[in-house]
């Protein structure tokens, strides 16, 4: 940066430089605090007593961790079921998406077939349609076939991941043609080529798509909120949102405890895998 070597650096400039660097460092630390502190505040509040949580001036820490808060939240509803619903829905979506999207992406990348462009157009259009536009019709559809009391309305609409198909197609397309010709010369059949050559090459984008989908559906609130009106099919997000509307609504230590249950698993994974997670998001964001 300092390429004006011709000029002599005066002591004043040197002092200013030090001050500038120190300020720069402090600002960066400040930024970290702004983005991490709310999570710490969430965790800290969740372990406080009610008086502690509303005390003035606020204390950063609790006198004694109130694990009972978690027990209370957990027992305020059928949380075991909510958690199970969240896990079932998310994992089923991912399994279904992988089964449906990988073959489709493969076909779009590798074969020229009549109508292929039109069908891919459907994928592109779907990719841009927000769920906020489709929920009414989908809701009515499931109500017509009386499936609103099952988990399917939360799963089936995401059976095909348009964004995932798009991403995977890109990475399948990047596999050099010669590699496939070489495999054909090695007497490999189509299925063999798909599993032994193509899928390993698309691994990183498959991982990115899966992670993307997992985080998205685990965190999703809008869709399950509009699709569920029975307690036993609700996922964690909807249940926790209801804490606010319940009798515990002003008991912030309980509301925060509920959110810790939702957020902590993801945060822990993030602490260990943040490099991979960020690069996955970047990979899919730039493409």
């Amino acid at each position, binding site marked *: 940066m300092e390429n004006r070597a011709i000029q002599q650096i005066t002591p004043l400039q040197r002092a200013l430089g030090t001050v500038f660097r120190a300020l720069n*460092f402090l600002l*960066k630390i400040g*930024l*970290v605090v*702004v*983005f*991490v502190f*709310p*999570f710490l*505040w*969430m965790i800290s*509040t969740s372990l406080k007593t009610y008086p502690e949580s*509303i005390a*003035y001036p606020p204390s950063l820490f609790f006198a004694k961790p109130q694990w009972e808060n978690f027990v209370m939240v957990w027992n305020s509803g059928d949380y075991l079921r909510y958690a199970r619903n969240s896990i079932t829905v998310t994992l089923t979506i991912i399994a279904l998406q992988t*089964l*449906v*999207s990988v073959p*489709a992406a493969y*076909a779009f990348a590798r*074969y020229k*077939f009549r109508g292929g462009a039109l069908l891919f157009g*459907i*994928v592109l259009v779907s990719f*841009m349609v*927000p769920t*906020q*536009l*489709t929920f*009414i*019709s*989908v809701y*009515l*559809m499931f109500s017509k076939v009386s499936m609103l009391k099952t988990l399917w309305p939360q799963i*089936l*609409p995401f*059976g*095909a991941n*348009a964004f995932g198909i798009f991403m995977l197609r890109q990475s399948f397309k990047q596999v050099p043609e010669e590699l496939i010709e070489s495999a054909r010369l090695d007497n490999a059949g*189509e299925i063999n080529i798909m599993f032994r050559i193509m899928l390993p090459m698309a691994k990183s984008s498959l991982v990115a798509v899966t992670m993307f989908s997992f*985080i998205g559906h*685990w*965190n999703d*609130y809008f869709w399950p*909120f509009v699709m569920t009106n029975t307690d036993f099919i609700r996922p964690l997000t909807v249940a*926790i*949102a209801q804490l*606010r509307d319940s009798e515990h609504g002003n008991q*912030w230590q309980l509301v*925060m405890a509920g*959110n810790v249950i*939702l957020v902590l698993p*993801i945060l822990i994974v*993030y602490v260990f895998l*943040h490099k991979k*997670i*960020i690069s996955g*998001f*970047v990979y899919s*964001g*730039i493409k």
Partner: protein
Amino acid sequence: MQDTGKLGRKVLPYALVLPAILFLLIFTIYPLLDMVYMSFTDWKLVQPAKNFVGLHNYRYLFGRSDFWNALGNTFYYSVLTVISQFCAATLFAVWLRKNTRINSLVRTALFTPHIVALLSVAMVWSWLMNEDKGLLNMLLNLLGLPGLRWLNSAETAMTSLVIVSWWKSVGYYTVIIFSALQTIPTEIYEAADLDNAGRFSRFFRITFPMISPQAFLCLITMTIGSFKVFETIRVMTGGGPGKATYVLVYYIYMTAFQGQFKVCLACAAGVVLLFIVGLLTALYFMLLSRKVHYQ
């Protein structure tokens, strides 16, 4: 396995894409068309008959001040969110550009909210922004300043929501722009040094043009994202105080599933949203194809 017959080879691609296409047709394309269709009827959830009423719903919508209010709120929210996110993300990305340990820590911290449920983010910030017991007002008081009303006043509620969405997503866009910066070859800066370029001209003449494809994509994603806002409204303000934070998606939801269950009206509002998103999407793909063309 090796000798899939001629017919087999012809059918194979269709068989591979069929499940995906079926899912998309049933759960995305059909509902979209259905929405457009319903927007021309008088259907309500509680009434079985569906009559064609032409543009009546649209005339009704555009004649109502609460719809205009929702539309206006949506635009206000979008403009503020997009501008604040984009400027901050670009600034942060350039600031944190060098690959030092502290910069990578800051980037990781900035990114954290992106992977957390928006619902939880909304809840923490409702707690932080609580007028009586929230930390933000306590901090202001400690500094001797009066507390703000945050979500409880029509003047500040929308801005408070923008702050929350800014905090949630700015890290994501920072990281995207940061990685775009990484692709600029260093030789260009060395050449600029030899040309005695100043800091500002370096940014506006070299850096920004080089990352403009990604920057434009970020802008479009931000805009479309901001039109979809729902969680924060539902959890933090419920559209209030008054109707100060009623946005389009919230309007659609409330019209369809609350009160008189006027699905037809909700669908007409949905078509308006579809139109806006469609316009932005067209722009997105135009830019995307330009970008591909350049490479």
